[in-house]
């Protein structure tokens, strides 16, 4: 009876049965997902609060995003959800080749997602869409008031403007966004939107990277030597729960960040082509 409780078998020493162990692992992962829900819930809540305050500014911000990459990524992520579900099945029926294949597919899809995401960030960086207090000098007509007489005169002058705001206006012009800065939207509040863009997608990417790590680990376990399906498949399942959750978050990020502004399908296609360098510059 000591043996039955020792760690020799697939059942851990402190469990009485495999079934209890599986149920506990599932419960554990679900409990962890609860915390994940509230983790993202926090930043989504902040987003909503400001969205209520500044709808136009957020639309303008969204219009400056690369919706092409987002579209492709959506389907990549959905596919990976499919493949990982198939992976559970293979593990359940003790089909090692199938397990390896499906895990590998998932890994590839996830990597593709991250690759495109990296490219997207890179483009944003090139376009100068990084919120900051940085100012740049540029020539502008300014109205100068004579301190004594108070008479006004227009003069070309080198003035300081916010780097981000400058870049934003250029990008929005390129994307054909019909809105006047300062009138229809306030560039500073668009910076606020971009803080959310980076925080939300950043946290999502972080979770993807962690998931990728787990996937690789399970793939290695599945590939070399001992793989005890009876006790292991529940871990694949738990991992898949996490992965589906990450997918779920993206389902909300997509409409809230990318789609809330004015976009067209052609624009998306063009942006994506540009991103992967299939079309010349704009």
């Amino acid at each position: 009876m000591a043996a039955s409780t020792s760690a020799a078998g697939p059942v851990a020493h402190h469990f009485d049965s495999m079934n209890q162990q599986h149920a506990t692992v599932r419960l554990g992962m679900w409990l962890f997902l609860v915390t994940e829900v509230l983790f993202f819930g926090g930043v989504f809540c902040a987003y909503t609060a400001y969205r209520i305050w500044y709808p136009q500014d957020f639309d303008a911000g969204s219009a400056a995003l690369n919706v092409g990459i987002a579209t492709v990524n959506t389907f990549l992520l959905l596919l990976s959800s499919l493949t990982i579900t198939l992976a559970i099945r293979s593990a359940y029926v003790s089909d090692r080749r199938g397990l390896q294949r499906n895990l590998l597919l998932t890994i590839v899809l996830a990597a593709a997602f991250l690759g495109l995401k990296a490219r997207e960030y890179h483009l944003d960086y090139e376009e100068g869409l990084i919120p900051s207090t940085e100012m740049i000098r540029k020539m502008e007509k300014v109205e100068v008031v004579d301190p004594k007489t108070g008479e006004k005169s227009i003069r070309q002058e080198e003035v300081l403007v916010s780097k981000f705001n400058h870049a934003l206006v250029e990008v929005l012009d390129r994307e054909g966004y019909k809105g006047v800065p300062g009138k229809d939207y306030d560039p500073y509040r668009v910076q606020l939107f971009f803080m959310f863009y980076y925080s939300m997608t950043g946290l999502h990417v972080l979770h993807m990277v962690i998931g990728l790590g787990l996937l690789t680990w399970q793939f290695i376990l599945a590939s070399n030597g001992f793989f005890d399906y009876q006790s292991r498949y529940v871990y694949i399942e738990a991992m898949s729960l996490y992965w589906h959750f990450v997918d779920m978050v993206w389902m909300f990020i997509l409409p809230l960040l990318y789609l809330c502004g004015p976009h067209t399908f052609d624009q998306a296609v063009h942006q994506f082509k540009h991103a992967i360098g299939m079309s010349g510059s704009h």
Partner: protein
Amino acid sequence: MAHDHHSHSTELHEQETGVHTVPPISTTLVTFGVLASLAVLALFIGFSNDLGGMKVVASLTVATVQAGVLAYFFMDLKQADALTWLVAASALFWTGLLFLFTLTDYLTRHLGVL
């Protein structure tokens, strides 16, 4: 002794949580089909710019349905026991609380003077 000890507690725990099985492959593929078409719908809404204020509502509704399907079939809430449902529900409930109170502030602050 060890034996009936085991038989006993397994029985006890089996009544807590049923044995899971893996859904047939057809279900999985159909679910994926549904999710994919919902994603297309979401994008369609996103690219149609004449909905005005309803746009965000519509696309969020689609997203919610999507999430529901994903949770029910892929995340296997289908076979999950009451406890799991409770856990999932509590997550939504508390996120709801966070939203409810915080947003109440942003919707009513201008009504008060302070």
